[in-house]
């Protein structure tokens, strides 16, 4: 027994690897498809995965987008959704013709590469999950991550009701799936992405009741605002949603200061957020860049992350108005990254020289006017039911029934002891962001709340960490098909150090490695 536990190291053990890709591309949007096609043309063996079509039940959990329960039943028909995707993205056909291994409905929940405190992986691996094939690991030489964007959540009374959804989710359901269930929408925010969603929904036959903006001027480029005006879509400035009216199907209308507005969709467009979860959980270096929509991976001119063999392209590399308006920019990024793998990159990539508006102030203003000043303390974290006040007072979760003895108003930094407030610390103490939606709905709101409270710029607040699996993964689906017998043999609940749990009355005066030659029963923790 002793020898079996003498070195429980994972070094040299094998993972259950189901395949290998010279290039793994994650995300089959414009950028990912362009990257896969370019790489295949350059002779690389490419695997392209995309989590769409997302299962109906998963969408119901607001994963990976804030779908607001407004997907039609058509989403339940997986084959129909696959066909809809192929119609919406003709480049998929091109990729298939070039021999790209295209896997739709396959979510990538983890990227694992050796880095500072991880060295035993023989090759970089990616975790994939698929409703029909289950979970698997594939190894890769290079990866291009093109995971796109999601929408910043925004609390107001009733934002947990069916019908409140993200702009990206609305556009995806409408364009990619043809399965958006709604007739009349109120759009929140005047970002380029909000206005583009408004135009796209209008084109799809959804009436846009109005666009609501807390500020007194739009932040999107003037040309885009003009396109809205051409369509007679009103922007109501100085307004937030004060409440929603609901029935059994969810939202029926919203309450603005000027009165009620009838709608069955409230579309959140106050912030398009780069979907960096996969890159972040792998441990790539990140930076908050207000030119790029928030936290993005640090990229070089070839769009390479701090991992030399991982690149990021498309919205997850940065979101700015021109790129949102012209999908060709994202596609060009994909081609550029793939071409650079073949040593053919023509030019250096760089984000825009400056931000088109003060993104930090804009998001903080929305959170102040909608969340902090809301009546009735709506939950910012819906999963764990945590309000803004509870976050800012660092209140223990209510399942503890805890009452602080002294209720002295203290600043956050005073409560936490100097330095900028750390969202991960707030998260663990209040549980905001710890639920099954993995912080997708509240992460940026908590960031803004902490910045508001401490009167700091948004970029002074660190990113609340992302952890694999970046999509919720059932235990039974996560079980590997096979396990290296060497892993099974050395498995122990702790490190398997021979004398660690020997009772203190049975411990020798001195310890040497040679003393292990004397057999003692192995004890567990």
């Amino acid at each position: 027994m002793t020898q079996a536990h003498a070195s429980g190291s994972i070094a040299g053990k094998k993972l259950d690897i189901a395949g290998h890709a010279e290039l793994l591309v994650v995300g089959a949007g414009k950028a990912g498809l362009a990257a896969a096609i370019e790489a295949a043309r350059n002779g690389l063996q490419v695997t392209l995965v995309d989590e769409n079509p997302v299962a109906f039940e998963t969408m119901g959990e607001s994963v990976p987008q804030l779908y607001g329960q407004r997907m039609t039943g058509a989403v339940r028909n997986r084959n129909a959704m696959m066909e809809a995707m192929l119609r919406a993205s003709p480049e998929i056909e091109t990729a298939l013709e070039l021999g790209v291994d295209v896997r739709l409905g396959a979510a990538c929940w983890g990227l694992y590469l050796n880095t500072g405190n991880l060295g035993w992986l023989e090759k970089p691996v990616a975790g994939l999950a698929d409703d029909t094939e289950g979970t698997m690991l594939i190894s890769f030489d290079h990866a291009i991550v093109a995971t796109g964007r999601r929408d910043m959540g925004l609390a107001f009374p009733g934002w947990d009701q069916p019908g409140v959804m993200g702009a990206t989710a609305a556009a995806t359901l409408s364009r990619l799936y043809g399965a958006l269930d709604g007739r009349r929408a109120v759009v929140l925010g005047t970002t380029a992405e909000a206005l583009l969603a408004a135009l796209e929904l209008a084109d799809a036959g959804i009436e846009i009741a109005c666009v609501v903006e807390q500020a007194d001027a739009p932040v999107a480029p003037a040309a885009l605002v003009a396109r809205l005006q051409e369509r007679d879509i009103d922007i109501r400035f100085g307004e937030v949603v004060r409440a929603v009216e609901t029935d059994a199907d969810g939202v029926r209308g919203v309450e603005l200061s000027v009165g009620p507005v009838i709608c069955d969709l409230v579309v959140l467009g106050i912030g398009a957020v780069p979907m960096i979860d996969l890159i972040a959980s792998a441990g790539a270096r990140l930076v908050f860049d207000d030119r790029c929509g928030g936290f993005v991976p640090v990229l070089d001119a070839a769009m390479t992350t701090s991992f030399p063999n991982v690149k990021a392209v498309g919205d997850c590399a940065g979101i700015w108005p021109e790129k949102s308006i012209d999908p060709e920019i994202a596609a060009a990024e994909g081609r550029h990254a793939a071409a650079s793998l073949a040593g053919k990159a023509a030019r250096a990539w760089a984000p825009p020289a400056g931000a088109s508006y003060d993104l930090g102030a804009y998001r903080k203003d929305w959170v102040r006017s909608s969340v902090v000043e809301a009546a009735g303390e709506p939950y910012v974290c819906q999963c764990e039911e945590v309000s803004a006040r509870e976050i800012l007072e660092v209140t223990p979760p209510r399942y503890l029934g805890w009452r602080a003895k002294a209720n002295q108003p203290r600043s956050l930094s005073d409560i936490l002891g100097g330095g900028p407030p750390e969202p991960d610390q707030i998260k663990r103490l209040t549980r905001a962001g710890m639920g099954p939606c993995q912080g997708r709905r509240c992460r940026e709101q908590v960031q803004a709340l902490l910045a508001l409270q401490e009167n700091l710029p948004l970029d002074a607040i660190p990113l609340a960490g992302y952890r694999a699996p970046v999509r919720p993964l059932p235990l039974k689906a996560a079980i590997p098909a096979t396990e290296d017998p060497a892993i099974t043999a050395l498995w122990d609940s702790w490190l398997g150090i021979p004398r660690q749990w020997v009772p203190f009355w049975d411990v020798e005066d001195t310890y040497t490695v040679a003393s292990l030659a004397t057999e003692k029963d192995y004890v567990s923790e």
Partner: protein
Amino acid sequence: MSANEPAAGGASVVIVGGGVTGLSAGFWLAEAGVDVLVLEKGLVGWEASGRNGGGCSHHQSPLFVEEQRLWPIMDELLGYPTEFRPDRIRISFDEKQLTLYTRAVLNARRQGFEVDELDARQVRELVPLAGDNVYAGHYYRFGGHANPHRTVQGYAWAIRDRGGRVMQHTAVTGFRQQGGRVIAVETSNGTFGCDQVVIAAGPQTAWLAGMLGVDIPMRVSRAEMIVTEPLPLMAVGGVDGNGLYGRQTMRGNLAYGGGPHEWLETEKLERGERPATPLMQNIARRLAELLPKAAHARIIRSWAGLIENTPDGRPVIDRVPHLENLTVATLSGVGFGLSPATGHAIQQLVTDGTCSFADLSTLRLSRFRDLEPDWVELQGWLPVGADRDGGAKAGH
């Protein structure tokens, strides 16, 4: 303020390290009326102290009895919630596991603690998420689990409530000695004079103590855990076995870890990444076996932590012979659960020179006086790549 001059904020006792051990020591010192300052390079309890299994039953330790006495009263002592839940049920799935787990039970019983033997039916009655694969179980009428991060924050707040200080974002860079004593601790935020110093800095303990000529053999390993979405609360949250440690949290999540680990080089002061690995899947397999009725539950996080380990895996809590005012503590992976007792013991070592409630002789540093110089290699604790070419570092 010059970094060479003692800062105005020196203290009678300066504790290096705001992990659970240093914080508990700070709490007990502040409780005893001592002017105490805890220095933490990052945030309190940010490393393994705040993200572990939360288990509180260390039958092997001379501090076990005090650990068991204190946990049920920690909320009251600190004035903050720890989410402590008592008791533990350990499930075996075959004769081999039962034999292994029974040894731990015998050691606890010998110290006067009660453990009931359970048959498979009794296990299923007590553990609604258990299944038909149960072989047998043990019900520990002691031990239990707490929420690590909530507890470390509770210690930190309790120190402040008693007039002590905790300085975060303050990295120790050196020590000033005079006449066989440490007279000041040098940090990134100035120099702090002191009458006594405690080094309890987790993986950083060896190199910090090394600056004072104290050789503490230790190596760092990475261990991993997974967490599921919340499930309905079971009556006893501390259900483990099948090669796993962990618990159902008071919120209802299943938080479990176990299995092989990787030996690493110690990072000095860095707050580097702590990536988890696909071993998440192997933990998931064992958790689905442990609690089959939870197999549908979705994993929503996994994480890794770095743990310091002495050669025999046992803590060092000791005063150093050649410096009259230095106490060192490294808990070798069992710091969280033992922390109430450890802090109490360190407080007594500092203020009284000896521990009144436990015999700490088996935790002395001198037990390693005959340790082989190449013990790391002999025990197979070298990091990956130390004996391989650069190919092992594919991707970086």
